[in-house]
């Protein structure tokens, strides 16, 4: 009797394993994952940077798009808090090309790698924070550059993800201070803010990143 029961049990398990799924077919699903509790941008970045950047250029929301893209931007000055006429004039084009790479790590976090055409090495910031909704997103973070004086920047960028790149790309930063001891006299003063946007409105998708360009050292947040 014992053996018969065991045999039936084993047979039942085998048959059930071989059964096709009893669930209905379908191709939609609901993936539920908690978003992280990232710092609110208004608590995180300096107020004067946010104000100069403009609320209309910031995309709010907690479901940003997946931004995995390398792109470059050529900047036109939009605003600065530097006293005129020493600072660049609004509408003036920057001679510097910026290269960016965003690697989405999580729902509201990404890794950022960036460099300018004046630099030979790129720097990596991890994590940077994302917010947004639909294809609109905003990225914000702090970084310490490896350029002269090691300036620390509070950075904010925003735009709309498209097939060709980032539309309406806007970029701004504030110099929070200098971490290095060799700050040149000609260095831009602390608390200076620059706001740019891409001069043709589109920061083009562009393949530039190479592991050899990395400093191989993650920069710490302040």
């Amino acid at each position, binding site marked *: 009797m014992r053996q018969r029961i065991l045999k039936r049990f084993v047979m039942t398990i085998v048959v059930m394993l071989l059964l096709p799924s*009893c*669930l209905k*077919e379908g191709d939609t*699903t609901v*993936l*539920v994952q*908690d978003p992280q509790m990232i710092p609110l941008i208004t608590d995180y970045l300096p107020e004067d940077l946010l104000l100069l950047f403009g609320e209309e250029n910031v995309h709010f929301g907690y479901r940003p798009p997946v931004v995995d893209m390398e792109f470059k931007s050529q900047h036109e000055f939009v605003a600065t808090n530097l006293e005129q006429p020493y600072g660049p004039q609004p509408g003036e084009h920057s001679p510097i090309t910026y290269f960016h790479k965003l690697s989405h790590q999580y729902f509201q976090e990404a890794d950022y790698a960036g460099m300018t055409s004046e630099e030979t090495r790129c720097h990596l910031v991890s994590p940077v924070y994302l917010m947004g909704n639909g294809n609109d997103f905003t990225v914000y973070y702090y970084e310490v550059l490896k350029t002269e004086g090691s300036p620390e920047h509070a950075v904010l960028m925003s735009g709309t993800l498209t097939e060709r790149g980032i539309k309406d790309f806007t970029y701004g930063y504030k110099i929070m201070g200098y971490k290095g001891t060799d700050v040149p006299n000609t260095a831009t003063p602390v608390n200076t803010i620059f706001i740019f946007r891409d001069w043709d409105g589109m920061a083009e998708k562009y393949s530039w990143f190479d592991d050899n360009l990395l400093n191989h050292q993650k920069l710490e947040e302040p």
Partner: protein
Amino acid sequence: MRKRLLLLLMGLMSVVMVQAQFAKPLKKNEVQDRVFSIGVTGCFAANDMIYSEVKKSLLSPMLAPSYGLAVEWNASSHFSVGTDVSYATRGGNEVFNIECLTSYSTSTFVREKYHLSLKGVEIRVPFTFYFGEKSRLRPYIFVAPRFCLWTGGNYHWERTYEDGSAEPLVYEGEVTQAMIRPYDLSAVAGAGLCGHLKMRQIQFFVKFDLGYGHSLLNTFSQAEVDGDVSFQGWGNMDGVTIGKRFQQNLEARLTLLVPLQKPAADACDFNQKPRRPKR
């Protein structure tokens, strides 16, 4: 670590069972030690989904019952193996609140709720070790592999804004193959108490135990893993499945078993007085 321990215990129990299968045939007067019982079982479980890569902000388990038939064979006065076949409801609830800025000076709380209810046939094979010999209530521990085959279910997902700035968004419907692996294999372990009751000539065992179950397989469907799905209710995170999703549950189970043979006096008996040694 927890899974390894469970597997180790299950392995040990399997060895004991195999050993019991090859044991010497029983003599007539030894049958009482080896009791075959049949009965009903039901449990009430707090079910939850956990993610390998996500720290959940709110614990909101889904409470659901399951019920079915059970058989148990006592291989000796300490060991038994059984089988439960139940109609079970599993799944989970996910809830989170997040403060979301709507401008520099205003924010709202967004609440997302997801309820997944899976229904199916569940087979459990508990290997049980009973402590003690002549106590009124015998404590026991068990480990069990558990196989579930999902036959249906439903889901409900909604997003609401505290300030009412946007209309609530709701998706709901039947569970499909795209949402869950169609079967699950779990390991369950727990402890309980067994009482041997006698009403007139009918004897039965009442077992109550608490167990913890954890799926051993990723419950994401193959389509979800492959990104071969059209998502709903998930904004623009198309094609992103991060890590693995497992099911866990804490269950309280009550089982009523009627022995088909007369059990030994010391099997789980508190009606019998202890035997006096023969002079």
